[in-house]
C-alpha cells in the first residue's frame, strides 16, 4: 500500500477572500485558501479588525513564525497574547506567566516545567491508559455517538486531572469552566459570547469570564488541601520549593491553575477530534494503525501528524517593542503581530505535500505547540501522550469507525475545533 495517503483538507473553495478575523469564517471550516494566498502573496500582511481593534500583522510562513517566536525581546508577550484590546488595568488583573517575557517568564516557567517534563509525564502513561476504559467502553456501547462529545471532550480533563491530582468527579465541571474561559466566542459553550453580549463587567476576570473567578477559587482550594500534605501528585510537587529554594506565590499558583485548565482542555480535545475524523474517513490510516502495536514507531510519527493536521491553537499574539522589517513591511513599535501556527503547519515551503496526511512523515517539525520560542507549550509531552494513548485504546475496541453525518466546526478565530463529529463505532 502507498505510504502517503492523499487527503485534501476539508476546505471550501470560496474561502480565498475569507475574513480571517471573523469568528463566523471558521464555523465553515478553516479557510485554507485564504491563508495559502497570504503565504504566497503577502507573508507579512496588515489585517484590519472590525470589532474596534487596531488591526494586526499576520505572519503566515513557517520560517517567519519561528523567527518571531525566537525574538521575545522584540515580539513581546507581555502586552497580551490574544488579539482583543485591553487596558493596562485589565491586563494586569488577568495576566498569567504566559503574558510575561524572559527573564521574568523564565523563573516561573522552570518552576512549572518540573511537573511536565517528558521524563515525568511518561511515568503517568499507565494511569492515562486506565482512564480510557470507562469512557471508551461506554462510547462503543452506544454505537452511534458524537465522538467529540462522548470521547474527545471527556478524556483530556480526566487525564490531566489524574496527572496533576484533582478528583475524577470534578473533571466534568472543570471541562465546562475551561470551555467558558476559552470558547468565549461560540454560543454552544458560553452564555457570554464575547462579540455578542456585553462582557464589559467581566473585563477584570481571568479570560474575561466569570468562570475564571470560579477556577481561581477552585485552584486555591486545591492549594490549601496540599499545605503540609504531600499528595504525591504534580500539584503537590509544584507547591514544593525548587532546588534553589524558590517557591510560587499564591497568585502565581492560582493564575497557573486557571491557565492550565484553559490550555489543557479543548486543545487536546480537538486534536483527538481531528484524529478520529481522519480515522473515520481514511481506511488506510485506520488499518495501518489498528495493526500496529503500541510501541511501533509509526505511533510516534502518526501522533505528530495528527497534531499537525489538527493545529487546534491557530494563532497567538505578540506586540512589537521596536520597529522591525519583515518582507519589506515595516512593523512598528506597538503593533500587534499574530503568529499563525496553523498556517506554518501547512506551509508548502517547509512541509512536503502539507495537505496530505502522512502517517510516517519524516522530520515533522510542526509548530502546533508554538515551538521556536520560550512560550512553547508546557503541556506538549502530556498532550502527545494523551492523543497517542486515546487513539491506541480506541482502535483496540473497534473494528470500524464511520462518519455518519457532517461535522460541525467551532465558532472561533483562535481555537480550531470539530465540535460535533457523528460516528458509528463497530465494536471489535
Amino acid at each position, binding site marked *: 500500500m502507498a505510504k502517503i495517503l492523499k487527503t485534501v483538507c476539508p476546505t471550501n473553495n470560496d474561502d480565498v477572500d475569507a475574513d480571517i478575523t471573523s469568528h463566523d469564517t471558521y464555523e465553515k471550516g478553516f479557510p485554507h485558501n485564504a491563508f495559502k494566498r497570504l503565504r504566497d502573496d503577502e507573508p507579512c500582511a496588515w489585517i484590519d479588525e472590525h470589532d474596534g481593534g487596531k488591526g494586526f500583522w499576520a505572519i503566515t510562513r513557517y520560517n517567519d513564525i519561528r523567527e518571531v517566536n525566537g525574538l521575545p525581546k522584540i515580539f513581546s508577550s507581555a502586552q497580551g497574547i490574544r488579539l482583543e484590546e485591553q487596558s493596562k488595568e485589565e491586563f494586569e488583573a488577568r495576566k498569567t506567566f504566559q503574558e510575561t517575557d524572559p527573564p521574568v517568564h*523564565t523563573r516561573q*516557567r*522552570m518552576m512549572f516545567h518540573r511537573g511536565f517534563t*517528558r521524563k515525568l509525564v511518561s511515568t503517568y502513561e499507565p494511569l492515562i491508559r486506565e482512564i480510557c476504559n470507562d469512557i471508551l467502553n461506554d462510547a462503543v456501547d452506544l454505537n452511534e455517538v458524537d465522538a467529540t462529545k462522548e470521547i474527545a471532550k471527556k478524556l483530556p480533563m480526566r487525564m490531566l486531572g489524574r496527572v496533576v491530582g484533582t478528583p475524577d468527579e470534578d473533571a466534568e465541571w472543570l471541562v465546562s469552566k475551561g470551555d467558558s474561559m476559552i470558547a468565549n466566542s461560540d454560543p454552544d459553550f458560553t452564555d457570554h459570547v464575547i462579540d455578542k453580549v456585553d462582557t464589559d463587567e467581566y473585563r477584570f476576570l481571568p479570560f474575561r469570564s466569570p468562570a475564571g473567578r470560579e477556577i481561581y477559587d477552585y485552584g486555591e482550594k486545591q492549594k490549601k488541601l496540599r499545605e503540609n500534605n504531600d499528595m504525591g501528585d504534580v500539584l503537590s510537587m509544584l507547591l514544593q520549593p525548587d532546588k534553589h529554594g524558590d517557591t510560587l506565590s499564591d497568585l502565581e499558583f492560582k493564575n497557573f491553575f486557571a491557565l492550565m485548565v484553559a490550555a489543557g482542555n479543548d486543545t487536546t480535545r480537538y486534536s483527538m477530534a481531528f484524529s478520529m475524523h481522519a480515522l473515520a474517513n481514511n481506511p488506510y490510516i485506520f488499518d495501518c494503525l489498528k495493526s500496529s502495536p503500541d510501541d511501533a514507531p509509526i505511533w510516534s510519527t502518526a501522533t505528530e501528524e495528527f497534531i499537525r493536521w489538527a493545529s487546534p491553537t491557530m494563532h497567538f499574539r505578540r506586540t512589537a517593542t521596536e520597529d522591525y522589517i519583515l518582507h519589506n513591511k515595516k512593523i512598528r513599535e506597538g503593533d500587534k503581530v499574530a503568529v499563525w501556527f496553523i498556517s506554518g503547519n501547512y506551509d508548502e515551503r517547509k512541509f512536503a505535500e502539507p495537505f496530505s496526511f502522512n502517517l510516517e512523515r519524516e522530520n515533522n517539525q510542526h509548530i502546533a505547540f508554538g515551538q521556536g520560542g520560550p512560550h*512553547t507549550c508546557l503541556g506538549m*509531552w502530556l498532550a502527545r501522550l494523551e492523543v497517542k494513548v486515546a487513539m491506541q485504546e480506541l482502535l483496540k475496541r473497534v473494528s470500524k469507525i464511520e462518519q455518519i453525518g457532517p461535522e460541525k466546526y467551532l465558532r472561533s478565530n483562535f481555537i480550531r475545533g470539530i465540535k460535533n463529529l457523528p460516528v458509528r463505532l463497530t465494536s471489535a
Partner: protein
Amino acid sequence: MALVKYILEDSSEVTIEAQVGQNLMQLAIENNVEGIEGACGGSCMCATCHVKVESVNGAELGERSEMELDVLEMEIDEVASNSRLGCQIEINEKIESITVRIESIQSI
C-alpha cells in the same frame, strides 16, 4: 565558518557548513536535520535539541551552564559527560569542525 557533522539516530550522517554565531539547534532546524525539534527556540528550557558531542577541532567548548545542566537532568534519562543542549553550542571563529550525535526526545 565551521563544519558541523550530525550523526542521526539511524546512524546516517549529515555535514553542514555553519557560520559564526549560529548554534547547533538553529543550524539543524534551518537544514531540516531529523531529530532536533528546538521547541523553546534556544531558550535553554526544553532539551529537544539534545546532542552528544563526539569531537571538536580548533577549540574547546565551554562548560555547561547551571541552567543547561538543570534542564538536561530534568529531561534526559541518562545525562552523559558529553550531553549538551545543541542550542547552547554556538559556533565561534576558533571552531573548525564539530561532530555531534543526535539523541532526539520528540516522541513519547
